[in-house]
């Protein structure tokens, strides 16, 4: 709240178990929480999948779970995977390894998210590790109509466009792959009627008086 944040999407890697706690914790704060996921596709591309409701994200998780390799996490190598309550207290350990790729292709992920009524945004598309453009080398057909792409925190929109001309005509957002409050960039500005996925889509396309702008004072 001190950072002036109104909209927050929770997008853990192939996981959603902590979203409900955040929604609970945010109740009455004026911060709207979008349930989401950062899906790692079979191509090893990271895709942000945003939804309106917990029901939608639960359906998403069920489908994604079916496509995970079923490996056990080893915390010594890959770190802990905790599920916590709305005060941050420990509930359980997630035992399956969330770091792996789903066997869903980008195309299958697009179809799944769209069937569930969500919004899919390729994450940190310019980043070498798990970014769409360095991994595939091009914007595939299934994403050609996709209006929004997220760029990583260490690049300006202008530079991203210079480096990847394929991004021209796309709406670029920048979320910073934030894992801690102190890392928030807070450069995405929306004009919305209300916080919803539909409204976000309108804003990204500058339709019906909604709009979106990226404001980068530090870059």
């Amino acid at each position, binding site marked *: 709240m001190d950072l002036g944040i109104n909209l927050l999407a929770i997008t853990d890697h192939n996981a959603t178990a902590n979203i409900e706690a955040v929604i609970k914790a945010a109740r009455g704060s004026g911060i709207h929480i979008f349930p989401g996921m950062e899906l790692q596709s*079979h*191509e*090893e591309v990271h895709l942000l999948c945003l939804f309106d409701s917990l029901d939608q994200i639960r359906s998403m998780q069920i489908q994604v779970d079916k496509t995970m390799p079923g490996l056990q996490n080893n915390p010594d190598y890959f770190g802990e995977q905790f599920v916590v309550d709305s005060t941050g207290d420990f509930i359980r350990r997630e035992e399956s390894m969330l770091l792996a790729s789903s066997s869903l*292709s*980008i*195309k299958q992920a697009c179809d799944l998210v769209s069937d569930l009524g969500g919004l899919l945004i390729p994450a940190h598309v310019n980043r070498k590790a798990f970014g769409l*453009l*360095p*991994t*595939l*080398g*091009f914007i*595939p*057909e*299934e994403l050609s109509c996709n209006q929004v792409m997220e760029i990583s925190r260490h690049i300006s929109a202008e530079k991203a466009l210079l480096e990847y001309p394929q991004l021209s005509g796309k709406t670029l957002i920048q979320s910073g792959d934030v894992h801690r409050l102190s890392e928030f960039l807070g450069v995405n500005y929306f004009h919305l009627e209300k916080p919803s996925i539909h409204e976000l889509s309108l804003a990204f396309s500058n339709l019906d008086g909604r709009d979106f702008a990226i404001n980068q004072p530090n870059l």
Partner: protein
Amino acid sequence: MNVQQIIDTLKLKVLTENKDFSSIQPTFGYSSDLLSCVMAGAPKQGIWVTLQAHGNIVAVAALLELTAIIITEGAMPDENTIQKANDEGVTLLSTSASTFNVIGQLWEMGLRNP
């Protein structure tokens, strides 16, 4: 060495339409599962070994005019991908063997120098 010999020796399953594979000779081989690396590194008319089976492998193969893609570890492209490959004239071959084993066999068959 031609693609028919490779299919026979490695016991590969042909997923796309049949062609006269004995008349197609790969220039060399390449392996990576990162499409951007393949685009930068695979030789024209080479053979590409990967465990990726999604639709975009076809676009890369068509771009580089690759003679064939050998899809390893039993990964199976969906119908649309196979259709797209047929439309683009890209040959998809499948095996349950690992990429390492496939490359080893190709090397032994003499596919060593571009």
